[in-house]
């Protein structure tokens, strides 16, 4: 029993022993590049076109960016759902959670504070309250 089922290093591809049907590595990188170019081009198009409803463009750009980050993770960093990659995925999930808390929490609190701020008045205090 010389072999053992170790975790896989992040960034390493599944070896042929782990997964007999693994596609050629060059094909994986090229697919990733193709998808990333497609998503980037769509982002630049969506930001400049007048065809789309402007209110939805920001949400669309966010979705495209998150999709492209996923493409980079899967095709360039080779993050998979396999059991030998569980530790990498768990660390990533924790990182994503913290990123979400920091970004969403900051924006929530700051928007709330801006809305509750007193209107500028002629009193001497007002100079401190203007942004």
């Amino acid at each position: 029993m010389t072999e053992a089922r170790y975790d896989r290093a992040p960034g390493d591809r599944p070896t042929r022993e782990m997964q007999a049907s693994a596609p050629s590595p060059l094909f994986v990188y090229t697919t990733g590049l193709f998808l990333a170019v497609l998503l980037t081009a769509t982002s630049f198009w969506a930001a400049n076109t007048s065809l789309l409803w402007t209110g939805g463009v920001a949400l669309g750009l966010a979705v495209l960016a998150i999709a492209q980050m996923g493409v980079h993770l899967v095709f360039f960093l080779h993050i998979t759902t396999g059991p030998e990659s569980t530790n990498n995925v768990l660390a990533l999930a924790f990182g994503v959670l913290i990123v979400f808390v920091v970004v969403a929490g900051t924006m929530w609190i700051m928007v709330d504070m801006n809305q509750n701020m007193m209107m500028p008045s002629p009193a001497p205090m007002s100079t401190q309250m203007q942004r």
Partner: protein
Amino acid sequence: MNISVAIDSVPQDALPSASEAGPAPKRVVVAFGFWIFLLSDIVMFAALFASYAVLVHATAGGPTGAQLFNQKTVAIETACLLASSYTCGLMSLAINSRRYFRTYLAALITFALGAAFLTLEIREFANMIAIGATPERSAFLSAFFTLVGCHGLHVTLGLIWLTVMMVQVAVMGLDATVQRRLLCFALFWHALDIVWVGVFTVVYLMGVSL
């Protein structure tokens, strides 16, 4: 019961799970530790993104993003960084198959594309500062230069690291230590590209169109 008999009775195809297999190889441990560092680096970028999103409208009467940003430059910068991420992947393949010439070639292209990205970014910053859009002009510009400048600083460090690694490949060859360091470099370079996806979407595209 005789122990050797007991071991022989274990089916050979049932490999032990990761937790039963003993210490993982150093390559796995090092790369996982670097993965944790990268995630903490991304958390730091998240804080910079959050402060940018809060301050994006605090222009204090100064220039706004729509007046300052040139989408053509950003598109070329994005293309450079994406292509260099791809060639960095090709470099990893050359390293794994121990092909020295391909490793050097892919590293050279990766370095050139990264340097082109950096040149465009520095020129963009210089143009902005020349027309008075300096970091001290408004809170928006402070947040902009902190976020985008921090990413540019990471790219600079990556280029220095790549140069050092190529010297190590030339001097030490592709031994296990150098291969581990190159794996960490590849992780770092791909992670920078992921951060750039956020930068060009949040800063440039949303800043120009909205």
